[in-house]
């Protein structure tokens, strides 16, 4: 059933509505509930396809569903509509205004309406798609303060990597932090790249969501085998490759591959002079788990991330 979670009037003949679809058996007494949230950043679209795939599989076997699935595909609908990462007209990041305020201004009120509606979920999955600049392997990012509780849940959703990162005060205003703070276990998935759909990643995460549903007793249908993710903790080193020159980055290595120290990752070139401005090389042995997708770089732009000392078994 499609419902409006919260809404506000825009100036000219339009309402901003946050919608969800509740998929559930007729009798919902004592059933567990998973909420799937996405579209917080208007330029991240991978989660859109996951919302569709989850419903497609349930619709194929509705008799196997023994729980409540709430799907919120567009937390920032005007951003999605206008290819804008933040909230158009405000130039604000929707993921920096939670838990919001029911008495606050329009966006705070909307943010608070979303948080209130998500309360009571047994698990919430907040799907992001990196940004338009970087391609990411399917991963869950967890604030270290919630690590103990969330890592075992994240291990169920068929991602390749769990990254437990240090807490930062600026991240206290994210949706995930706000939900975790009120006791709703919330996983932040980052996968793929902005403005695109990576079908294989979407299928992979969908498999994981069904595995989680099954482990919570919400799905009696078949469940595919899931992979065991690498777990990176706060104290583990991560190597960041930043552009040393402004220019056009052309990659020579795929992400989610093993690299060795000195390996050629790509070049930053100057199309005007036809010269290579600088060569980007791996600074250690490890797994290249992030790669630059958007070719234009400024000095300092992130080119890639390496997990030192780890190896993928192929």
């Amino acid at each position, binding site marked *: 059933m499609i419902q409006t979670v919260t809404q*506000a*009037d*825009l*100036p*000219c*003949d339009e309402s901003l509505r946050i919608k969800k679809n509740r998929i559930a058996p007729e009798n919902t007494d004592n059933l567990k509930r998973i909420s799937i949230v996405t579209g917080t950043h208007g330029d991240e679209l991978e989660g859109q396809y996951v919302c569709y795939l989850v419903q497609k599989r349930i619709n194929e076997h509705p008799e196997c569903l023994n729980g409540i699935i709430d799907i919120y595909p567009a937390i920032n609908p005007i951003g999605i509509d206008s290819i804008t*990462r*933040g909230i158009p*007209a*405000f*130039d*604000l990041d929707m993921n*920096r205004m939670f838990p919001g305020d029911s008495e*606050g*201004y*329009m966006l705070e*009120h909307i943010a608070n309406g979303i948080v209130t509606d998500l309360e009571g979920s047994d698990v919430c999955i907040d799907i992001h798609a990196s*940004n338009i*600049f970087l391609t990411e392997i399917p991963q869950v990012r967890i604030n270290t303060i919630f690590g103990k509780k969330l890592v075992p849940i994240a291990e169920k959703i068929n991602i390749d990597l769990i990254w437990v990162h240090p807490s930062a*005060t*600026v991240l*206290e*205003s994210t949706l995930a932090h706000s939900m975790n703070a009120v006791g709703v276990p919330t996983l932040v998935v980052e996968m793929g790249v902005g403005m695109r759909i990576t079908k294989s990643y979407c299928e992979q995460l969908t498999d994981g969501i069904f595995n989680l549903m099954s482990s919570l007793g919400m799905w009696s249908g078949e469940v595919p085998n899931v992979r065991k993710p690498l777990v990176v903790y706060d104290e583990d080193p991560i190597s*960041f490759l*930043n552009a040393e*020159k*402004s*220019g*056009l980055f052309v990659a020579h290595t795929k992400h989610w591959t093993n690299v060795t120290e000195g390996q050629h990752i790509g070049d930053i070139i*100057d199309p*005007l002079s036809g010269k290579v401005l600088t060569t980007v090389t791996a600074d250690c042995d490890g797994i290249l788990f992030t790669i630059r997708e958007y070719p*234009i770089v*400024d*000095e*300092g*732009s*992130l080119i890639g991330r390496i997990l030192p000392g780890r190896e993928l078994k192929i």
Partner: protein
Amino acid sequence: MREKIIYELKTLYRDDMRARAFEFGSGEESVCILGSLRGNEIQQTYVCSQLVKELNILEQKGAIVKDKKITVIPCANPRSINTEKRFWPIDNTDINRMFPGYDVGETTQRIAAGLFENIKSYKYGIQFTSFYMPGRFIPHIRMMSTGEEDVEQAKLFGMPYVVRRKVRPYDTTTLNYNWQLWETKAYSVYTTTTADIDEASAKQGIKSVLHFLKCIGVIDESVSTNAGYHSKLLWNTDMVNVRNTHSGIYRPVLQSGQQAEAGDLLARIIDPYTGEITEKIIAPCTGTIFFSHSNPLVYSSTAVVKIVPEN
């Protein structure tokens, strides 16, 4: 006056981005004055350009006190100014959320680090800055309450108000906060506007800074300055926020700087199709209008007016 480039970033096709500083006097790093960090801070840039002009005249008259150096950076982000975009062109990040910066990090972290390295050891830091919501302010000094803030000294600017507020999580990455961590006395100066020029408050900003420089002994006491106000000290929570209910076209009646009596009409909200008044915004108390919304459009539940109540 000496010109100095304190930070430079090479780009692919555009000119190198330069943060250009203007130095007056020499010796002790006394006062650093920063204009824009964001691309829509035109008023902030303008006020600093006028200060450069004034300080140049004062220096030629020998009115900068010996062993005191003043540095003015009218604009630390010309790349955003030239594209009329508030944040960094490529990734939309805010340099004023990147301090103290990281010199081998991402682009705007590097810019923040490069700037901060050059400006962190001044005794006083003055930043002309702007608010994220569009609107007009009464000129004022804004301070974060870190426990170390010197409100008595803030009154030396002679602005109508000195406003204090509690530190919020994201404040820890602003220039003002990091200046304070490095024991610089930091003041944020708000004049009336951001993306357009307001002459009257620009003049107030210039007068206030020159008066402050005289009071702290950086420019000669023979220079005639008069900022004009005995600053009223208040907390941002002392202000009464007046919110609208309806969205629509916003027509202000009273604006920042004006007095309002309880019950006065502050603004009207108009239906964009029928022209009917959908809402009258009424002053809930008597006082001075501190902030007034200035966009022609308004979204629902916006704090369109902030009033400093009488008493």
